[in-house]
């Protein structure tokens, strides 16, 4: 049976895409990704999850996010590395990056800043803390 898609649905979807800000969540833990998605969705954001930090560039090229939430402690490629590489790439360096990590010392924050991160949220965070950081950029 063919699916009937009404013109108004397509229009709504296009409208939604125009209004909603897309947030790419990069975290090796699916539970954390799901949680952040759950926290952002009710606020009108369009969260997209990615568990493999090696595929960040590919995901950005496909999704064109307005903001990236990046975990730091990840296997294969840590968040500091990802951030540094994104910020040195002219194609991606205009996208704000917020590091979302359990690394909470002053030196970690400083190092994150040195890698070009635009924001820093330490885990565990409250819903308000996360939203406050996200709203600064999207």
């Amino acid at each position, binding site marked *: 049976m063919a699916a009937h898609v009404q013109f108004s649905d397509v229009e709504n979807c296009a409208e939604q895409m125009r209004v909603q800000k897309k947030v790419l969540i990069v975290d090796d*833990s699916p*539970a*954390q990704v799901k*949680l*952040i998605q*759950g*926290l952002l969705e*009710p606020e009108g954001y369009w969260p997209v999850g990615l568990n493999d930090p090696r595929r960040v560039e590919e995901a950005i090229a496909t999704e064109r996010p307005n903001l990236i939430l990046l975990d730091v*402690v990840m296997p294969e490629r840590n968040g500091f590395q990802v951030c540094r590489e994104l910020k040195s790439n002219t194609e991606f360096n205009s996208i704000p990056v917020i590091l979302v990590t*359990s*690394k*909470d*010392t*002053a030196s970690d924050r400083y190092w994150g800043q040195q890698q070009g991160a635009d924001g820093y949220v*330490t*885990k*565990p*965070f*409250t*819903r308000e803390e996360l939203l406050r950081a996200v709203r600064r950029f999207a």
Partner: protein
Amino acid sequence: MRNTNVLILTDDVEFARLLTACWQVERQLPGICVVTSEFWKEADTSSPDLIVVGPLKDGKLADVLRSMESNTALILCAPSEAKELALLRKKYPKLLHVPLREDWTQVVLLLAGESLRRTEALKLARKAERHAAQYANEATLGRYMYDMKHNMNNALTSLLGNAELLLLEPGGLSAQSLAQIKTIHTMALRINEVMQRFSSLASELREGETQSQVETEEVNSTPNSRR
């Protein structure tokens, strides 16, 4: 040499008096205890760092030496009898022989000083080894705690976040479930506070350590610092 003990074992009162008197004019004086061969076994010598054996009654030397531990540092002040000394040296590798000549007190003090300094250095080295082992254990514990902190924070993020998500739509929950989720949320926040207190304590300890290190380096680098 302040923390070292010397036992003078002799039946010759003049030997003990002279040696003690010479030691007392030295800059650093160890703890000195004098015993005769008669009370040697009964005396509480509390494991001396060095034993100076002076003239003893006939036949007592062999008895006395037999009852000593072979690893005790020993200075024997006696007329040289090559045959007997060779045997004693074999049994007591740390034995030093000082012939009873005119300058024997100076020689004894010199040898004793070196021996006690060595003992003291060994004590310090052992203490440093003990501390190093203790610090290594603490470092392992610290690393473990640091790793655990990361896992704990991740777990707390899920706990706190999911509780908040459920509390966003309280309509679908029974009053009891709502109260239980609120409790979970409150407890997660409390654990978070405890974790943050641990973190700030660790930072304070690190800062204190750095500060004391800086002060120590400053004192050591001051040319006129009192030693």
